[in-house]
């Protein structure tokens, strides 16, 4: 399936240390026709073969090891321009302005609705 959908469906990467997110989010995104790869850490994503093919990244903020914003910085520094949608379970809106300023497409508070998610991903994919 991945082989054929690679060209036709945009590839969404999900990076989250929480297993239930890595289980549930890809299924929902796939039901909307996206191709999805999930990673348990920023490091795992950076070293994966998916990195150059990823069209959009859904990125958790707080993770053990490299955090979401650190990965954002790392990608920018290494010339990757993958649009990023941040997700966080930490509640506050405090981090939003800074992350948006650093180029993030959106910032979603867990739990987020299906509409909010799909809207954010579609926006991310239309970003040049």
């Amino acid at each position, binding site marked *: 399936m991945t082989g054929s959908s690679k060209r036709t469906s945009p590839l969404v990467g999900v990076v989250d240390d929480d297993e*239930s997110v890595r289980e*549930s989010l890809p*299924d*929902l995104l796939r039901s909307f026709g996206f191709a999805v790869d999930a990673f348990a850490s920023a490091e795992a994503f950076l070293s994966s073969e998916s990195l150059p093919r990823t069209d959009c990244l859904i990125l958790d903020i707080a993770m053990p090891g490299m955090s979401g914003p650190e990965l954002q910085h790392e990608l920018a520094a290494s010339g990757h321009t993958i649009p990023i949608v941040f*997700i966080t*379970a930490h509640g506050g809106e405090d981090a939003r302005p800074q992350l948006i300023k650093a180029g993030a497409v959106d910032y979603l508070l867990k*739990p987020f*609705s299906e509409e909010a998610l799909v809207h954010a991903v579609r926006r991310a994919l239309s970003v040049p």
Partner: protein
Amino acid sequence: MTHAEFEKEGPVVDDQFRLAIDKIPGLVWSSLPDGYVDFLNQRWCDYTGLSMDEAMGWGWQVAVCAEDLPSLVDTWKTVLSSGEPGEAVARLRRFDGTLRWFLFRAMPVRDEAGVVVKWYGETTDIEDQKRAEALLAGEKRLLEMIAKGEALHPTLDALCRLVDDNADGGHCAIRLVDSAGRRVQHGAAPALPPNDRPEQVIVSDIASDARLKDSEWAELALAQGWRACWTQPIMSLEGRVLGTFGLYAETSGEPTPQQRNLIEQCCHIASIAVERMHSEDTLHQVRAELAHVSRAASLGALTASIAHEINQPLSGIVTNASTCVRLLDSDPPNIDGARETARRTIRDANRAADVIARLRALFRKKSVTTESLDVNQAIREVVALLRRDIEASHVSLRTELSARLRPIAGDRVQIQQVVVNLVLNALDAMSTSRDGARRLFIKTEPAGGDHVRVVVEDSGVGVDPADAERIFDPFYTSKHDGMGMGLSISRSIIESHGGRLWAEANRDNGATFAFTLPTSVAVTATGPDDPRVPANA
């Protein structure tokens, strides 16, 4: 007159004088200038059982307790060479061998030229006084132990030893009834007879006492050589029986007035020790409550991680449920996929419930109880509990608790928590004041007919009128180690009791915190758990 002259001429005491001297209710004697005793009155001889001949010169020394003799002789020699009046204490042996403490006093008689020609002496029985002093010193030691907060059991053991030392052969035992109704035994004497009645029980002969007929205890006591047992209840200030104090004797009979007195005194000390421990328990309870408050206070700091813990499974639930709906809506419906996502939804919901259960366990608080409460008494307890903190802070405390206060309806521990918070804040506020200028004043008074007012006034750094409200905000603190929750929690406690808590700056220096509480109306304070379940239920 010299020693040699005396030998020749014999005692120079006329019969009349001698008769008078013999009638004096004291032990009287005289000696030559060199200390040679030339006369002892009849009582002296009767008491010691020595004849005048035996006691004359230096013979009286055999009646002095060997242990005390060297220092007595030393003092006597010093007095002789100084020519000045002097005194010493030593134990003197009665004819029957009993040793009793005496005060020996000697006065010189001089001729016209000022030369000592004779010494007159008086020896006074000070045994009772000595004993009273020893008992007093023992009581003082015990009270110090109690005041220092030493544990109850060593204190009561020391009390038993004191009694044993002063009871003329009696042996003491103390039995406490602890809050769980268990009995705890102290002292070397056998267990006390089973009796918790709040009255004195004098069993003058264990063998024949009708009350103890066929009693196992009586058999046991007799087998151990006890014949009499006198017990008295140890009562709390409110008249509760805390335990029993008993004195055993090896001979049958009634207690002597001294023994009665001893029992009385020791019951009193035991009750102080026990009540002190109870208040110590209350202190622990208050401290535990306070610890709980600080734990609950860090709730704010924990909100972030709580939110994270809960939002994580919630996110899974929402996403899985969304997927489930979409899989069912698809054509043809993906039943297997939907079943799997529904299963994950349940799992995540359980995970969220677990988080909540863990949090509840962490923040569970004993429920609040409403009782008729004497605010003065509650404050007295807090003051007793914080006395050491107050002393350690070099703060002088004055209290003025109105006798006209009506009881309030409320939770004792919570109200005490408020007072503890205010007092601890006051101590903190005075920590930088000059040593002599640290004054704490706690006052209660009726207010407006149906309220009581409690005022805590200090001479510390004071509160800026601009901050008088802000300091009640949660997490507002000016201290390194402060949580900033004390006043905010205190205010919510007082308000849940239908009262008010506020701060004022003093005219000179320091701050005054005051709160009011309504008297008559029963207000049910609410806690996080069911408020109707009483504490410890």
